């Protein structure tokens, strides 16, 4: 129990299956087909910069929508009894456990031209394409990741004792103040958790755009596509994505610490 030796198998594993593959990505990103060092791949990456920005944009909007929808709901749930909370959470988890692609597929069926939603809107005289556009992709993302935003925020909020809110009210805070001064600051760790758990997969998602976005693909799709004919450029794009995500995580971490200390 005091020995470090039991971890040796896993440390070896980590080396081979986590570190080495990433080193390979690094290697391919900085070399050309012949194996010579080059930065040309990153020049190619700049061709994809508009898709990068588009992906981050979609991820940002999806994350914000999830946050706006989830936050009040998390609060309401956290004020329920323990029993009620676990039942509600259970029902939230069922869709989460359904297969990712099937859930996206469901939206393909719903949003398809002459599908149920389209037919319904046509009755009201609204003629518009519901699918194969950015809007559809965002709907799909929000649908997919909303529970991932609800659960961490609810978890943190359920730890906020009711007596804190009552104390604030007792001292003269109206609803808005209670929220600003007590509930919100205490919920920040949950928000950071939720935002991280939604933004990262959303930005790097693979296939959702192919199902719902029509021609407008996202960076995840492009990585796969490029990899089919050029490992080097593909690796470079993947590397840039990883660095961006890492930067985001570091930023979220710093932000969280500041909130915890500054207030």
């Amino acid at each position: 129990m005091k020995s470090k030796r039991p971890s040796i198998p896993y440390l070896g594993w980590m080396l081979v299956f986590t570190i080495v593959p990433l080193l390979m990505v690094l290697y391919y990103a900085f070399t050309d087909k012949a194996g010579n060092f080059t930065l040309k791949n990153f020049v190619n990456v700049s061709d994809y910069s508009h898709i990068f920005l588009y992906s981050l944009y979609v991820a940002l909007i999806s994350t914000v929508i999830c946050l706006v929808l989830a936050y009040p709901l998390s609060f309401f749930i956290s004020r329920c009894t323990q029993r009620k909370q676990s039942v509600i959470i259970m029902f939230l988890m069922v869709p989460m456990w359904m297969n990712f692609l099937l859930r996206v597929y469901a939206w393909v069926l719903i949003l398809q031209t002459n599908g149920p939603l389209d037919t319904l809107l046509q009755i009201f005289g609204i003629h518009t394409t519901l699918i194969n556009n950015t809007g559809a992709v965002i709907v799909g993302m929000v649908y997919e990741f909303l529970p991932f935003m609800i659960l961490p925020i609810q978890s943190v909020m359920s730890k906020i004792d009711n007596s804190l809110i009552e104390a604030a009210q007792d001292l003269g805070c109206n609803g808005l103040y209670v929220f600003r001064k007590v509930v919100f600051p205490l919920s920040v760790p949950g928000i950071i958790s939720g935002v991280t758990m939604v933004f990262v997969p959303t930005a790097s998602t693979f296939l959702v755009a192919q199902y719902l976005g029509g021609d407008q693909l996202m960076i995840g799709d492009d990585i796969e596509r490029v990899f089919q004919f050029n490992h080097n450029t593909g690796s470079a794009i993947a590397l840039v994505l990883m660095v961006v995500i890492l930067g985001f995580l570091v930023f979220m971490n710093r932000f969280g610490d500041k909130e915890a200390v500054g207030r």
Partner: protein
Amino acid sequence: MKKPGQKIYLIIIMAFLYAPILYLIAYSFNNGKTSVWKGFTWKWYEALFRDAQIMGSLKNTLTIALLAAIIATILGTLAAIGIYNFKGGVRSAIQNISNIPIINPEIVTGVSLMLLFTFAGTMLGFEMGFWTVLLAHIGFCTPYVILNVTPRIRQMDSSLYEAALDLGCSPVKAFFKVVIHELMPGILSGFLISFTYSLDDFVITYFTRGARFQTLPVQIYTMTHQRINPKANALSAIMFVTILTLLIISNIVTSRKDKEAAR
């Protein structure tokens, strides 16, 4: 729930989450392929069960999930114990590297493993398939096991292990007779999370499966990519019922356990 507004909001969100799935299930009984209702039928379910490919994928998925979960649990539990004995800075560094598969975008992990397996495949003369998928799955499951077991190690009274030694157990025996019982909740939850994540994994499996190996998520991709396939609807229905049943059972079991503990 105190105000009716809160209740309504919860119902709306739940409806949003469940409606697409229920739509899928409803149309799994449709005697046609479009959104036009053509009569009730079981034929898609029959087709599903007769589809040897789908059944094969299901078998593969379950096999991989079970093996990956078991191996990841053993590897991860040992790793958690060993890593816990490293000192501060080194321990942090190892934990951070161990968490890379969790925080890295799946597409980057998938692509990096693909590079590794392609390279190793040409060097050592093998093709991607069952074994590479299994290795990849163990790779992303083990960090979750470590995250679940480590808090248990921290909480455990270390004098229990010493008491076992004191009474004559060799270190290995002490682990199996005493320590494992204390860690069991973490080991079990690590196992379940591993099993679930492996069951549902698409992206990483997609990149490490080679040309022929199919798991269920990958199969679903083939089924739904760019075509409407009512067998997917039937599959969704079955999954939904299974998940709902499992979650309800687990909810009842945990609430019974809590009631007993409270007594």
